[in-house]
């Protein structure tokens, strides 16, 4: 009844609280914030020692791995769920403050938050509580594959099967959707972070060099590839030689990265195959006709669609702007949230 009042005082938000990036969609405005999920915390010395937030988002991400003793740069989300509750809450609060106009009243918006479909009740509760503590008046949870499918423009409400594979920073979610609900959902805790780890480990093992997570991420973005055959790229990388203890530079090729990523990619492929096994045959026929859709930052890995195409024999398409699919999808759910309740999940 007082919806118009509430909409005056607070804009409803949809938050894609990802392991790597947090995106905020504001009703009627679109995506207004896209920042890394990183918080830098400064510990002040002196008699009144306390911890303050130094930076969030891009500024904090630049500090990752380069902080002095009194600053710690934290990624409070891990594997798609909250690893550090207090820091996550502060991060959400800072982001909400950033997107909300300063008004007389502190914002208390209704918030849609995405949760991995493989997350436990406790993890969902933690995400809900963090959003409530950050000032939300009501929190709706939506499963990531559902949001990703909506954002990719799939006909989720139709009586046809749509398969979506959302490869995020911490998790890979596979969902089969029909009639506005999830028929099958699977989740493996493999994502962009695991790719980075795999690259770091590969380089340490084969080159005896130690590189940081940020460098590994850059390598993945530059020359990372999931399928052999396309042109081979090379990149110069600097790291610390473990034997000498001195920074050195070396050159690495995309084929090596392909080898490094082999294991996490296989986990994703097997998750997709399991999903196809578990899908009811009628929906499987639909999926065979139209294929699956890749969303999330992982979909930007070169030739990942070709890998899945060859492994499954099904058409695979990469959604437009895969990084923002989940945020856009939850934003579309936000626009229609008063009319639909079935796409939201309970704890």
């Amino acid at each position, binding site marked *: 009844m007082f919806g118009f009042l509430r909409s005056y005082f607070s804009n409803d938000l949809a938050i894609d609280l990802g392991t790597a990036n947090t995106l905020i969609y504001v009703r009627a405005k679109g995506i207004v914030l896209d920042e890394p999920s990183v918080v830098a915390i400064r510990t002040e010395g002196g008699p009144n020692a306390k911890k303050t937030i130094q930076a969030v988002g891009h500024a904090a991400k630049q500090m990752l791995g380069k902080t002095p003793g009194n600053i710690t740069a934290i990624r409070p989300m891990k594997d798609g769920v909250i690893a550090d509750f207090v820091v996550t809450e502060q991060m959400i609060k800072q982001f909400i403050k950033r997107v909300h106009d300063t008004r007389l009243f502190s914002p208390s918006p209704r918030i849609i938050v995405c949760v991995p479909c493989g997350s436990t009740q406790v993890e969902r509760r933690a995400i809900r509580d963090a959003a409530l503590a950050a000032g939300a008046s009501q929190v709706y949870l939506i499963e990531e594959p559902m949001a990703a499918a909506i954002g*990719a423009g*799939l006909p989720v409400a139709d009586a046809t099967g749509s398969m979506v594979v959302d490869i995020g920073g911490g998790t890979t979610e596979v969902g089969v959707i029909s009639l506005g609900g999830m028929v099958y959902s699977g989740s493996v805790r493999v994502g962009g972070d695991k790719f980075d780890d795999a690259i770091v480990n590969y380089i340490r093992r084969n080159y005896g060099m130690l590189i940081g997570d940020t460098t590994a991420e850059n390598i993945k973005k530059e020359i990372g590839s999931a399928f052999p055959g396309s042109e081979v790229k090379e990149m110069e990388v600097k790291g610390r030689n473990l034997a000498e203890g001195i920074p050195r530079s070396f050159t690495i090729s995309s084929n090596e990265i392909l080898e490094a990523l082999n294991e996490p990619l296989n986990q994703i492929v097997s998750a997709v195959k399991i999903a196809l096994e578990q899908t009811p045959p009628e929906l499987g026929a639909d999926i065979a006709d139209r294929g699956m859709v890749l969303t999330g930052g992982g979909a930007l890995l070169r030739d990942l669609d070709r890998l899945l195409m060859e492994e499954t024999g099904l058409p695979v*398409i*990469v959604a437009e702007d895969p990084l923002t699919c989940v945020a856009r999808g939850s934003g579309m759910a936000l626009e229609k949230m008063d009319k639909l309740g079935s*796409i939201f999940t309970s704890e």
Partner: protein
Amino acid sequence: MLDVSAEQAAAVVGVGDMLRTTREHHGLSLVDVAQALKLTQRQVQALEDERFDALPGAAFARGFLRNYARLLGLDPEPLIQSLAQTSGVAAPAELAPISNAQGTLPNGDGALRPSALPMALIAALLMLAVVGGWYFDWFQTTEDPATGAAVADTPVAPAALTPVVPPPDSAPLVIPDDAPTAQVAPTTAPTALEAVAVPSMPGAPAPVVPSAPQSDAATPVAAAVVPVPAPAAPKPEVAAPVEPVKSSRLVFRFSKESWVEVRDASGEIIFSRTNRAGSVQEVSGKPPYRLVVGNAKSVELEYGGKPVDLAPHTNVSVARLTLE
């Protein structure tokens, strides 16, 4: 590749034509393309013929087009844009499945639901009864079991009220109020109190009981008082103060329900209540009285034993008058 881009620039004509010519340029057949993209030959043909409605949907059409363009080494973005222009495939996504029916199923066991309604009805009826009873004064009977008891509740000097019309010789009862004799006052006060207290007990002869001690007490007092004023003043003067006191008693007889308020000389309310039909109320105090009598037509008033006509003082149905 150079040929392709030149062709691309020229091929504003159609997405499908450009795909077909580029494919033929690369020497690929429809089957090759279908195998590479894991599509059916029919779907590739539909792409080249720009029959996008034969494809599963807008999102898939764009995805297939992008994959096809990448396979052929074309930049997919201009193709996607021209596709959006030609077919206008940007229908807003529907998020809830189609619905052509309404209604909710009972949750839990259905046995409870039918009984819930009568329970609510009974509760509502009880509530109505209570409210109605209060409104129509059904519960008033409990208020006055005897007129005397109710009178005792009113904050009036105990000596001022007597339950029955006393005999004329009880007039000296009031005299102690102005009499200077100290011994008389303590004796009469308790008796008057008793006289008020006793009638509150149930029993018909109750009013008779107090009259005996009253007259007993009164006679010695009268005996004691009479000699005192005799030398001071002549008899008529003694009778004069007695006269107004004697006539200061108000008797109301109600033939219908009526509300009455009486104020004494000090302006204090000495009597105020709603009286039931058929009841008789007596009020005494210090005149002059100011009276407000509701429903005056059905009230008979006696003042000092003489009937008072309320009609001249009545406005509509309420009589307002002052009795001296």
